[in-house]
């Protein structure tokens, strides 16, 4: 066995293992594993998106045209599970794998073999989860929140879904441990904590969230399993349990989970915006503190998803206040991004366009979140399309936009090819417009009284649903366009060669290595120089 980091002394940087199995199935290389994660996430995004397209098709007009109600519920449930655990989270882990070692000057992730395992659990887990579609009784149909007792009525799928979630949890925890060990232990000399790029910071915080909440989720679904198959009474009042107990545990996981999906996105945009504003990130230190504050608060606000379950009055008050607080650190972030643009010298390449759309659309999503934090008003919003609009604004134009923007931003570094700026811009405008046609009308639907998770609706909701569906199809098609752009860039069709620095205003270690990034980048012991870094926080 030869020694990777040592090998960089005398061989060329680019020696990859030969053969498909060795290169991909047994890889320990953070870049290859990152690539695997990204490809997997894209596949799952298409899968989850395809389910969403059937949902939008059925909701195109009132009356049932295509699917039975039960199947509709399966679609909603699986759409969410796949998007959350299959698309968004793995995509961010992909970015973490690719970028963190390069950004902090590490030879690889701290625990490379475990890194491989973290990834290779996913395809198996999702195959198992997706196979429930073909079982008696179909896929899970109780919503991604898996509330009992409804979820216990499902057919065979429960055991498969629970075990799939256990596997996802193991994968996420191992991935998070790896990120923490890498960031805390593998930074190059002179890479102090307060010199780390913000993406690295947000991922460090995200990793803590993951380790803290994934086991809790695993515990919750384990209780579902035993309630269903072994006669325990956790969620059964007759035995002294309580269905609402599940909701508390689920949201203790679930709320941090949504920040797990947004913090890395904050990180990515905090890299992109300074680059194209040609100005240092405004308020670097407060960005770090704000991320930490958001993470901390995320543990103590969970029951804002449960205002209507009939909590004691004091609980409702407390969770209302605590939830409102999250707006403060998030506001700090938004203001800092705007201030970074302020008096910069901005250019508007594709990644920057997504960043600008993100700031606007995420803030809109955040505002609807704040409205829902007001408990007495949430009695009205809860479980309506207003909620659906809220979380797609933060998840699609928050997390998914970050993933797309990150791909445009770093793909020249990954492949050595510049994507086509013209196509990228078309993709952006097409998506940015259609996503608003898709999700904005859902605010009106919710306010007008349309509940979520229904396959059919009364005729007064017809018009906005039609708009939403049209926007949905358009947004879906735009993503086909994205796939084409990515493939063309990888293949180098209609593209130019990327320079090492790629972007005029880019700062940070990753821009000092060749494009494409060699298979092995840094060897340890090499100190980084302050002038290579984006943030050298000196007050």
């Amino acid at each position, binding site marked *: 066995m030869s020694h990777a980091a040592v090998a960089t002394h005398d061989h060329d940087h680019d020696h990859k293992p030969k053969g498909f199995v060795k290169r991909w199935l047994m890889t320990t290389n953070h870049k290859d594993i990152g690539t695997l994660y990204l490809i997997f996430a894209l596949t799952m995004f298409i899968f989850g998106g395809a389910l969403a397209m059937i949902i939008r098709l059925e909701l195109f007009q009132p009356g049932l045209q295509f699917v039975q109600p039960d199947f509709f519920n399966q679609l909603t449930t699986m759409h969410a599970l796949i998007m959350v655990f299959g698309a968004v989270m793995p995509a961010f882990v992909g970015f973490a794998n690719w970028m963190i070692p390069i950004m902090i000057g590490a030879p690889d992730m701290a625990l490379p073999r475990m890194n491989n395992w973290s990834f290779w659990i996913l395809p198996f887990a999702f195959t198992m989860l997706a196979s429930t579609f073909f079982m008696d009784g179909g896929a899970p149909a109780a919503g991604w929140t898996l509330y009992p007792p409804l979820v216990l009525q499902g057919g065979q799928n429960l055991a498969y879904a629970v075990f799939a979630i256990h*596997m996802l949890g193991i994968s996420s925890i191992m991935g998070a441990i790896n990120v923490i060990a890498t960031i805390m232990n593998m930074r190059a000399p002179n890479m102090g904590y307060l010199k780390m790029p913000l993406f690295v910071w947000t991922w460090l915080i995200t990793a803590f969230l993951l*380790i803290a909440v994934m086991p*809790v989720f695993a515990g919750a679904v384990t209780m579902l399993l035993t309630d269903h198959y072994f006669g*325990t009474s956790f969620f059964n009042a007759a035995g002294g349990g309580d269905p609402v107990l599940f909701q508390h545990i689920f949201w203790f996981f679930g709320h941090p989970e949504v920040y797990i999906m947004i913090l890395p996105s904050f990180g990515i945009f905090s890299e992109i915006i300074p680059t194209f504003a040609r100005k240092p990130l405004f308020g670097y230190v407060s960005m770090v503190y704000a991320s930490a504050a958001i993470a901390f608060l995320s543990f103590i606000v969970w029951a804002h998803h449960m205002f209507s379950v009939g909590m004691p009055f004091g609980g409702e008050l407390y969770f209302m206040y605590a939830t409102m607080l999250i707006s403060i650190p998030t506001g700090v972030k938004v203001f800092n991004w705007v201030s970074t643009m302020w008096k910069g010298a901005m250019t508007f390449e594709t990644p920057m366009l997504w960043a600008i759309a993100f700031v606007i659309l995420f803030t809109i999503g955040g505002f609807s979140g704040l409205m829902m934090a007001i408990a007495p008003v949430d009695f009205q919003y809860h479980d309506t399309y207003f909620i659906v609009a809220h979380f797609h604004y933060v998840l699609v134009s928050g997390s998914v936009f970050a993933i797309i923007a990150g791909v445009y931003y770093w793909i020249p570094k990954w492949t050595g090819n510049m994507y086509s700026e013209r196509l990228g811009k078309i993709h952006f405008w097409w998506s940015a417009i259609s996503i608003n046609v898709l999700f904005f009308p859902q605010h009106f639907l919710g306010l007008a009284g349309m509940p979520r998770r229904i396959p059919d609706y009364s005729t007064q909701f017809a018009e906005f649903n039609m708009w939403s569906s049209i926007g949905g199809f358009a947004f879906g098609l735009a993503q086909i366009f994205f796939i084409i752009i990515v493939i063309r860039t990888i293949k180098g069709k209609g593209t130019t060669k990327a320079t090492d620095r790629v972007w005029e205003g880019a700062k940070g270690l990753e821009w000092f290595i060749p494009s494409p990034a060699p298979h092995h980048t840094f060897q340890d012991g090499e100190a980084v120089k302050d002038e290579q870094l984006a943030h050298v926080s000196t007050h």
Partner: protein
Amino acid sequence: MSNTSNDQYYVPHLARWPIVGSIGMTLTAVGAATFMNSETATTPVLMYLGFAVIIFMVFGWFAEVIKESENNVYNAQVDTSFRMGMVWFIFSEVMFFACFFGALWYVRNMSVPWLGGEGTGLFTNSELWAGYEGVWPTNGPGDIGGKFELIDPYHLPLVNTILLMASSITLTIAHHALVDGARKKVIGWLIATVVLGAAFLFFQVEEYIEAYQHLDLTLRSGIYGSTFFMLTGFHGMHVTLGAIMLTVITIRMIRGHFKPESHFGFEAVAWYWHFVDVVWLGLFIFVYII
């Protein structure tokens, strides 16, 4: 493998075992799920096969790591990565148990009192469960699982507490001996630790048999049975795992592994064992006594 490599962070080239592990995991999961759903199957064959694959994987993987370790491939920085890995893994386990302790707290302080008519539960009690008192221990207003008796905390559980505490002490003695380079002593105290762990498990099994056969206390005994068996059951599984890991490091000691100044494998197992121990203290107090 070059011997000068020790100043470099070791990055392995290939990982053979993860994919085996994933296959093992999937077999286990699919095997267990089909078994649980089946009305006729009596042995989860596929699940056992999955376990076998996982065990194979663990041994293969660890053998590789141990070999590398004994060949001094790892430098201090790698060691730190391993330590961080173990610490954060244990933290994730803490959160897993926290989930069940949280559930116990909730049912005792919220749901059971509500069912009994306290606070906001006034109408719950009068409309649905009239006559139910809501005092712990309980199997709920529906008397799920029928009447049951409790395990006396001051017999077997107390013995078990003492056993586990003692095992933590013996393990710590072994650790100090290792740092002092007294290998014989280490092995002796490690064996003592394993024996104490095994004794704990033996009594735990005794207790379960007693509960099922004489006390009518089962997993199905309402919320009391549910929380009791899930908490002690998961703890028991962790003790089993810990005992196996202790056995492995004992064997490694006998084979001459570990050095006074570097013995991460030993320490990892020790941390894990202390963690299991602390969980037991929590169980003893919150499940058995209070």
